[in-house]
């Protein structure tokens, strides 16, 4: 394979991984914008999506579509009950307590998944055929197309939701100023719950569409969650397009870094980028600098 084709290959796989990171990052941003919480359990919903689908498909022998829908529903329910049981009771909690609680939830969910499904790695069959397509000499799997398609759909869908639906506008109002939103009659509590619901649903979808490519197991949530966070930090919490660009950029850098520098340090690339951005420009590359406050 000549090097330009190889480059193209890296770019393709980088973009599809990046789309996944963007989706996960999106989940972080939705909860952060409505509550100011970074949900450390975000990655676990990604894991739940993949693992639940495999469970329904192989153990209960449901058809793929049913398995996927059920898996999204259950992940969403887990997200909502987490909010009801552990987040909502803690009014005015310090950030430290919220961090500790979401970390607790994350390892609880991971531990439960390990007990139920064991430590093995599982693969989900591809949604459509497994035969590679050839574009400009590079191979691309139909699953890559699924990933990119679903991501685009979700991004467009959430754009429409946040800009045109009543609930979406209400959620945006809460993120600007929760007290004012409450005063004009928006039910802030249910908006927070809705944000957990949407974010765990998106997380689980990300986990489902990536599972046929990368395999999944009870502990994939840590890495995927962190990389999603990295995407949202690159893009900036406040910008949906920024998150998408951040995810794609991260995916590309990772894939090119793994290809041309060192495959064994692939995972480290994401975290070095994360640290650099947090040190130099914590508000993200693609968003305006916020006013300085103490």
């Amino acid at each position, binding site marked *: 394979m000549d090097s330009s084709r190889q480059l193209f290959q890296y770019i393709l796989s980088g973009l599809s991984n990046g789309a996944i990171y963007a989706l996960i990052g999106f989940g972080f941003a939705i909860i*952060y914008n409505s509550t100011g*919480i*970074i949900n*450390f359990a975000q990655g676990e919903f990604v894991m739940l999506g993949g693992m639940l689908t495999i469970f329904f498909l192989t153990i209960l022998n449901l058809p793929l579509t049913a398995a996927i829908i059920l898996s999204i529903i259950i992940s969403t329910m887990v997200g909502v009950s987490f909010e009801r049981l*552990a987040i909502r*009771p*803690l009014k005015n909690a310090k*950030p*430290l*307590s*919220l*961090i*500790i*609680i979401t*970390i*607790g*939830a*994350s*390892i*609880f*969910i*991971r*531990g*439960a998944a*390990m*007990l139920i499904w064991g430590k093995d790695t599982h693969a989900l069959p591809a949604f459509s055929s497994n035969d590679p397509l050839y574009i400009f000499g590079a191979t691309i799997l139909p699953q890559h197309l699924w990933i990119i398609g679903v991501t685009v759909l979700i991004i467009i869908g959430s754009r429409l939701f946040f800009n045109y639906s009543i609930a979406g506008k209400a959620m945006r109002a809460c993120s600007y100023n929760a007290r004012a939103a409450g005063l004009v009659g928006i039910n802030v509590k249910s908006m927070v719950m809705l944000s957990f619901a949407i974010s765990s649903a998106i997380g689980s979808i990300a986990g489902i569409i990536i599972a046929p490519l990368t395999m999944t197991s009870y502990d994939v949530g*840590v890495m995927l969650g*962190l990389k999603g*966070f*990295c995407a949202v*930090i690159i893009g900036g919490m406040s910008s949906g397009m920024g998150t998408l660009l951040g995810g794609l950029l991260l995916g590309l850098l990772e894939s090119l870094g793994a290809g041309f520098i060192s495959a*064994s*340090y692939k*995972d*480290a690339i994401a*975290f*070095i980028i*994360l*640290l650099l951005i*947090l*040190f130099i420009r*914590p508000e993200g590359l693609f968003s305006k600098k916020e006013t300085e406050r*103490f």
Partner: protein
Amino acid sequence: MRFFSRQRHAVRSLKLNMITEKKRQILIFLIFAAAVLAAPYFLKGNYLLNVFVFVGINTMLAIGLNLLLGYAGQISLGHAAFFGMGAYISGIITARFPVDPFLVMILAATIAGALAFVIGSPILKLKGHYLAMATMGFGIIMYIIFNETVDWTGGPSGLSGIPNLHIGSLIFDNDLNNYYLVWLSTLAVMLLSINLSQSRIGRALRAINDSEVAARVMGVNARILKVRIFTVSAVISAVAGSLYAHIMTFIAPASFGFNFSVELLTMVVVGGLGSIYGSFLGAAILTMLPELLRVFQDLDIIIYGLMLILMTMFMPGGLISGIEAAAGFIAARMKGTKDSDAQA
């Protein structure tokens, strides 16, 4: 001027109270130290002695993290990395070269401290969730380095052939000797940390935790102090790591990953944020739990998760606050009966 005489009276009685309080604290430490040093006598030949060696190491680590998390209120999800640095620097050098392992231990602590000092400056400018993520990222980078520098660390399959520590002909190669090695170090760390926590530095750290703005207005240089305590905390973790390497004689990256950072966090939260004895309690519980749960393998991670959530929700002061409350209650009851006796 009744106002002033009443205030003077209050000051006098306070000074008396403080002297008894000081004596009480010294007494508690002496009792604790005596109990720890006497324990092997009762545990002769018991495998628990071995477990207690690790309780000691984990106590040291938990105290290190607690100084940062419980006192200064700054989270770190990457502390296992400093533990790992101590272990690997000691392990790699002493396994290859015939140098004094205690000197290497000092070197390891210095390197870990220097790294903490360098990354501490930018990292501790971040607050809350961002700090948590950044320290987690740091921890994972270090973990990847432990795994990938195979020529040095042996990679995922580990590093073996680390010699035991020795002082003259006294070799620390059995549980009893290791127990005293670890616990004398741990008691020293405890004592120094208690001293620190009750000094102007300890107060300044807690002030940062409660209100960073007010602390700065009162002249506390929060930025520098946070970096310094992060460094101290890394040094303590690295020393614990060196001890661990020499006791185990074999180390692998799995002991120094994100999961262990979370386990340390759990120890601190369960025992009690901002309590040195609480760190011991948390370390003891989390070290013994897997031993008790052998029957239910793999259940420990779920239990850690539940503990983190439930403690934060219902007992934010940790178990130690529960124990203190109970002790206070009993003391009040006893005093109450004494008073009523006197009346009768």
